[in-house]
């Protein structure tokens, strides 16, 4: 089997007439942590949904383990999805059942394990994210960081090959952020996972990523190891790393010039 787990090839995607991705290509290596960075609103979540087969590209292809995600039968797609897992920004825990039942949910849906075995697995997964003590709390009783860790325990319940993290650090205090950074790194090596981390928190993710892509303006503007990214000579990449308000990535959403808008020149 090849060393590339996810291979995106000249993918084109648009929504509501607005082009989101204009022929982008990227590769995710097996066993590595790949970071995808970019400003908010660039459609990073969309990228994960395209990889997960929830959205369909308008051109190009997305291969997962050398199979085209978007040409599979529905049944095959559902089989493949058991090998991938996604951590949503909100956690997306089921609010009507406890943390324990949330983590047990995929096991009960997809396996015929007995309740005792499920209990053992669930408690082990919760131990891995440090929430064994919170097993019987309801999701609304958790803090934002805890909810995300509980969702992470659910995401690893079925021992997937790959986890996609959607903005895992957004809105976290420095301690929770540190915990999540450590968890992503440790789970990746301990469980032999492949991770895709989509984020705009550049500093945190560059400490753990093996390879990084920077998305802006519908394209990939930079790619490389964290070291290469930091030393990149591209103005775009430097603007993004340093967080300058204006630069090659414009501050303004595309619009007619303000003189035209106010003075009615047509």
């Amino acid at each position: 089997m090849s060393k590339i787990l996810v291979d995106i090839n000249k993918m084109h995607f648009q929504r509501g007439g607005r082009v989101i991705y204009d022929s982008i290509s990227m590769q995710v290596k097996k066993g590595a942590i790949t970071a995808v960075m970019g400003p908010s609103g660039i459609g990073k979540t969309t990228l994960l949904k395209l990889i997960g087969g929830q959205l369909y590209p308008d051109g190009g292809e997305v291969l997962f383990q050398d199979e085209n995600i978007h040409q599979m039968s529905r049944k095959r797609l559902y089989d493949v999805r058991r090998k991938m897992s996604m951590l949503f920004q909100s956690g997306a825990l089921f609010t009507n059942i406890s943390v324990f039942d949330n983590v047990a949910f995929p096991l009960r849906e997809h396996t015929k394990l007995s309740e005792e075995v499920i209990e053992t697995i669930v408690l082990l997964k919760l131990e891995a994210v440090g929430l064994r003590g919170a097993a019987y709390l309801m999701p609304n009783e958790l803090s934002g960081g805890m909810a995300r860790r509980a969702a992470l325990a659910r995401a690893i319940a079925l021992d997937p090959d790959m986890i996609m993290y959607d903005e895992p650090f957004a809105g976290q205090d420095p301690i929770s952020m540190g915990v999540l950074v450590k968890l992503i790194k440790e789970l990746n090596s301990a469980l032999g996972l492949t991770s895709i981390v989509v984020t705009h928190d550049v500093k945190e993710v560059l400490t753990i990523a093996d390879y990084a892509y920077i998305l802006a303006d519908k394209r990939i503007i930079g790619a490389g190891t964290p070291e290469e990214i930091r030393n990149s000579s591209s103005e775009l990449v430097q603007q993004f790393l340093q967080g300058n308000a204006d630069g090659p990535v414009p501050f303004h959403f595309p619009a007619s010039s303000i003189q035209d808008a106010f003075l009615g020149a047509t």
Partner: protein
Amino acid sequence: MNWLINLGANTLSRLSAIGNASLMLWGGLFAVPRLKNIPLIIQQVYVVGVQSLLIIIVSGLFIGMVMALQGYTILVNYGAEGSLGPMVALSLLRELGPVVTALLFAGRAGSALTAEIGLMKATEQLSSLEMMAVDPLRRIIAPRFWAGVISMPLLALIFSAVGILGGHLVGVDWLGVDSGSYWSIMQSTVDWDKDVINGVIKSVVFALVVVWIALYKGYDAIPTSEGISKATTETVVFSSLAILGIDFVLTALMFGIN
């Protein structure tokens, strides 16, 4: 020319909404039911059916009482107050039972279903089910649909039964109509197939429509607070209009042409 463009765009978006709703119905409901889903259906029967009992019983009681009161004041002029029983029973079984139950159900359970599904969508729970290789149509939509279709005819029958007792309470116990004639004329007038079964058929049709609208509106809601609020309102408005319109058609088919 703008209105023409708008008309076209509106028609297209309506048509595609109907298409999407039909796909949802197809994907979720006509898939082979799995044994695993039966506990889910039972749980939803409790939520949409059992928890609607109070409002159904109270409304049925009062509607039966009001009908007996109104009916008595008119019938007594012709000395026909003995026909109070069949009047109450027939109006409840043929019309008021199915229709009022469906309207109450749309307000009580339909809106709750829309809000629940809409919020599940907004909080990415539906998406995360999909990513866990669990089909939300089967896991979330189908049990709620079947629960609604099972519950509503039962609720309508309970409504009618309680209404008839309410009519007895006012007509016989208070206004003094003879109890024997209330029951016996009712028994000889009400026909099982024509009245009871037709009423049940009506409420099954209403259930299909109300639950379908409620679930689709939730599933299709724009995942923001305004979107969910709009979807909930539309569920109640569209369901109510659909119930009244379909009721006329069904009544014409069942009782109108002989």
